[in-house]
């Protein structure tokens, strides 16, 4: 069971306040935008998706979320629904359709068309959202966790630049073991950050947990 005080999402469900909202927005805006961008939407449409996803979370998202499940697939599911709506708005703009009354509608169906190829593969948007989420976790970690400068430099050379570990060891005049250790040290601290974001928990709490 997740302690409420450690769960950003649980607090927003029970006692929403401005500071938690700002925190939530700051942490999840990029992943939501990444989900929208993966759907091929324009920058303006991606921003609409961000706004609408946040509004839906406020209205009923936190209430409907089941805390025993992962949070981000739930959040990204809402973002994908909003992206679908943005695609429909774009289709409307492109078609120059004359507005019609709902009273004229006989077969309106809000359900997604499962054959709509614009929404497939469904996992692509989820993956882009997860990549962005890892990026948020890493930015937070590097901002708040004090690593030795050399550790961060070797980590970036290995992971950001995808350089060969032996090459990195030569560059930094150290052993291959130290290079592997640098990578392992950062990843060991990163994992609880990413895990916390994925579950809607506080990153600060996760950071302190990673530094017993």
């Amino acid at each position, binding site marked *: 069971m997740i302690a409420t005080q450690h769960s950003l999402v649980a607090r927003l469900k029970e006692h929403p306040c401005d500071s938690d909202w700002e925190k939530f927005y700051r942490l999840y805006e990029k992943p939501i935008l990444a989900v929208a961008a993966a759907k091929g939407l324009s920058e303006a449409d991606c921003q609409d998706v961000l706004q609408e996803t946040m509004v839906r979370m406020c209205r009923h998202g936190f209430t409907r979320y089941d805390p025993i499940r992962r949070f981000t697939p739930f959040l990204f599911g809402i973002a994908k629904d909003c992206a679908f709506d943005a695609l429909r708005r774009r289709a409307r703009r492109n078609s120059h359709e004359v507005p019609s009354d709902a*009273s004229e509608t006989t077969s309106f169906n809000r359900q997604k068309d499962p054959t709509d190829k614009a929404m497939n593969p469904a996992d692509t948007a989820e993956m882009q959202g997860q990549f962005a989420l890892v990026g948020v976790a890493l930015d937070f970690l590097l901002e708040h966790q004090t690593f030795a400068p050399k550790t961060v430099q070797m980590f970036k050379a290995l992971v950001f630049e995808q350089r060969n570990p032996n090459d990195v060891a030569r560059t930094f005049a150290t052993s291959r073991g130290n290079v592997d250790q640098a990578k392992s040290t950062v990843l060991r601290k990163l994992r609880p950050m990413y895990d916390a974001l994925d579950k809607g928990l506080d990153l600060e709490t996760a950071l302190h947990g990673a530094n017993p």
Partner: protein
Amino acid sequence: MMSQEPNSSPSRLSDDALAKMISEARTTVHKIPASSAEIADRLSRFNELYEALPTKPHTAALIYADPVTGSATWSAIGNRLTVGRSPKAVANTTESVLALHDQEMSRQHFEIVLTSDGLYLLSDLKSLNGTYIDGVREQTRVLIGGTEIRAGNTHFIFTGL
């Protein structure tokens, strides 16, 4: 395979998989559009008004501070909602009117219609002072959750579905 790994719980990812995700994240970041301060401000205003509502709407609605009492309230949109100082009532029970004591509003100021493709379309009804959507005077606009509307001295926010 890499494509399956992001769907796994982070705690189950191997170091190599996590490192690959970081590498992908750096590519993804360049493709992510910028957010905007306007969105954050708009959401802040939405949250403030929404939390002040004594009861919450379960369908698409306009939320606003009543121009007379100042209290937060809402009006469901249904298939059509006409807003103004004294909008004409219609016989069709699926269509609603919202009459407000705002002297800067026209009798029939704007309407929101649920279109056949499930979108909410706002149209200004040739109002004297105009309808402002997210700060811009517009004749018509498809609304999304959080869109701000100003008619006369009254500010509304569309809740979305």
